[in-house]
């Protein structure tokens, strides 16, 4: 049996958690909070979408930010990952042997940083290796290298939580995060005292935008967004907020169980035949590796006590589907 002890997440600009005595800024009713804030977010993003500017710094509350030297090494996705896990741990610290599994995206160095390197490495309009060695590398802050490693979205969160149990970052355009959830359940079965499972990603990196444009039709693209969310799982829990019933890959045409709530996490034009009760990407935008975890949180927020939700995630790259079922317990 896998119980969900709590859920927390950060989307732009909503912050929410459930299952814990969270800080005052967290809304008492996460459903309203999510919807209200994301309605605002949708309006903001719609104006920002014409890709004509650098993404604004993530506007996180001060106590959720990565500061100091770490700020130079942290990618946007890793910053969101740290914020979401820090939010969760405010109620109760992690067991040091806890497992941590995170769906991560293609982390990238800030374009401005890479441009500085390439710009400094040009001679007569062409890339020059000697110039790269002499000037390009020197213009680059080595700490920024760590922004480019997808595994660091996991590592920053692991350091934040001080967890040393089994863990993995899985590359994800959606489905990888569902696979990570199955992995986390196995870790619990193998004896981990608790497991943190989630996703963190940003769609605001210019290369990601281009990649998504290449992968998807305009109708599929949706509005690229960013966020992070985690579930805290245990095999034995005193007052769990929910229970995980199933996590697996599935055939897209497989019938949906007649549950109380059907949440779909997929680009609009690929929605399955049965009409969803909630379209998670209409709420949060396309957050790529983070989107399934945000959808699970949304399902928990929407369910009444003893209600069951099916959440279907469609991978943005492969088109394959993942299937998760959650029961709300309190």
């Amino acid at each position, binding site marked *: 049996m896998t119980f969900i002890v709590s859920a927390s997440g950060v989307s732009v600009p909503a912050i929410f958690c459930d299952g814990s005595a969270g800080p005052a800024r967290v809304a008492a009713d996460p459903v309203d909070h999510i919807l209200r804030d994301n309605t605002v977010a949708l309006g903001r993003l719609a104006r920002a979408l014409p890709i004509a500017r650098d993404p604004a710094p993530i506007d996180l509350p001060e106590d959720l930010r990565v500061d100091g030297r770490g700020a130079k090494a942290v990618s946007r996705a890793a910053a969101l990952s740290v914020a979401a896990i820090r939010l969760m741990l405010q109620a109760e610290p992690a067991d040091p042997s806890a497992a941590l599994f995170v769906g991560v995206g293609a982390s990238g160095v800030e374009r*401005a940083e890479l*441009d500085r390197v390439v710009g400094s490495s040009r001679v007569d309009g062409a890339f020059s290796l000697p110039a790269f060695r002499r000037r390009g590398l020197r213009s680059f802050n080595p700490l920024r290298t760590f922004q480019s490693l997808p595994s660091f979205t996991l590592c920053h969160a692991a350091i934040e939580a001080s967890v040393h149990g089994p863990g993995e970052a899985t*590359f994800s355009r959606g489905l990888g995060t569902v696979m990570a959830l199955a992995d986390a359940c196995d870790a619990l079965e193998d004896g981990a005292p608790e497991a943190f499972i989630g996703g963190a990603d940003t769609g605001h990196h210019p290369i990601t935008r281009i990649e998504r444009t290449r992968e998807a039709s305009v109708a599929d693209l949706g509005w690229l967004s960013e966020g992070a969310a985690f579930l805290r799982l245990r095999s034995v829990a005193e007052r769990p907020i929910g229970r995980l019933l199933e996590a697996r890959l599935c055939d897209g045409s497989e019938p949906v169980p007649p549950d109380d709530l059907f949440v779909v996490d997929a680009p609009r034009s690929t929605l399955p035949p049965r009409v969803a009760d909630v379209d998670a990407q209409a709420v949060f935008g396309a957050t790529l590796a983070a989107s399934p975890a945000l959808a699970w949180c949304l399902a928990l927020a929407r369910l009444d006590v003893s209600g069951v939700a099916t959440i279907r995630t469609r991978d943005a790259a492969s088109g394959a589907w993942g299937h998760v079922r959650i029961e709300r317990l309190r």
Partner: protein
Amino acid sequence: MTWVRGVGCVSALGPDWTTTADRLAAGATGVSRVERFDVRGFDCQTGAPVCSKTVSAEVQRRNSERPPEDGAMLEPRVAMTWLAATEAWAQAGLDTQRVGVFIGAESGFARYPFAFDLSRAAGGGRTFDHEAFAREGEAVMQRAQHSDELRPAAAVAARFGFDGPVGAPAMACASGLAAVVEGVRSIAAGECDAAICGGVGAGLDPLLFGAFDRLGALSPSGVARPFDRRRDGFVLGEGAACVVLGGTRGPSTPVRVAGWGRGLDAHHLTDPDPDGVVAEATMRTALGGQPVQYVQAHGTATAKGDSSEARALYRLFGDDVPIGSVKGALGHWIAGAGAVGLLCAIEAVSSGGTARGRQFPTVGFEQADAGCPGWHLRETRDASVQAALVNAFGFGGGNVSVRVERVS
């Protein structure tokens, strides 16, 4: 129970595992001065590249009846992974399409021509022109065959027509071995009948080379010397290594994956835990209380990395178990490192088939002193090895260990 059904590899020492293993056994090294680009001015000037012409020729030869149609093979990581996967699959003797593919592959796609073209698409100056980038960037990405971490696994699955799960663990230098754990887990969960698992590294490019050089991780002496007192860093290598895992025993390789462990240092962004406490716990989990007679160590030849691993090994085994590392001979494949380490461990415990039960010499190792008082790397090439442990430890503190054993 998960069995090894086949192995495959492409490396600086050869286009397949048989050639690579024979040359490793003979003490050969694939490390040489880098000729692919001008390395004057860098602290390190060596690497272990895989020749792109050799890869292209091998891809053409193996594809003679069905040439690649989609250009995916132009991407070095995809081509090398496919070569390793086809070699392993040919040995496996399996007749199923329910096959998962898990490949660690996050190093080597950001090659400098790609980065430069992208920068030019964004205006080529010191400020990023998003509108120009939106117009020109997609064409650059098509030309550059740029692809994400999942591409090698997805391309292999598509080429074979497999319909199992596809995954790409992103654990830096532990990715390849983490992919093996994913394969074991996926078979056990019934998601697939078999899995192709492994890793690929294609990082011998000015961008990655320069970044590691600037970080001081590469060897100024140009020789990676795992666990040696003169060690001064690693050299970058390239290659791909794959295993086919199945739920049933195969005809050629009587080896099974008997245990595995994963653990997070959560200590520091760049440095390993100096005492290797989590690494030790990870190995202990993989061992499951069972013995091994050989350890294929991560052994990066960095001062801190080897010291941390040696301390963990010493607490677990004392001086009793022979240790080896392949990075002196093949360089460090980053995401692919753990996968080729696994092949070496399988080779150590195998008998019959394509594997011959041997441990390879640790090229570069001469003077013991890994920063762990009392511990000495002991090489033994004639021991009867029934079981072996393989380690892969990633930058940022992700640890993976796997135990393999021969079953009579």
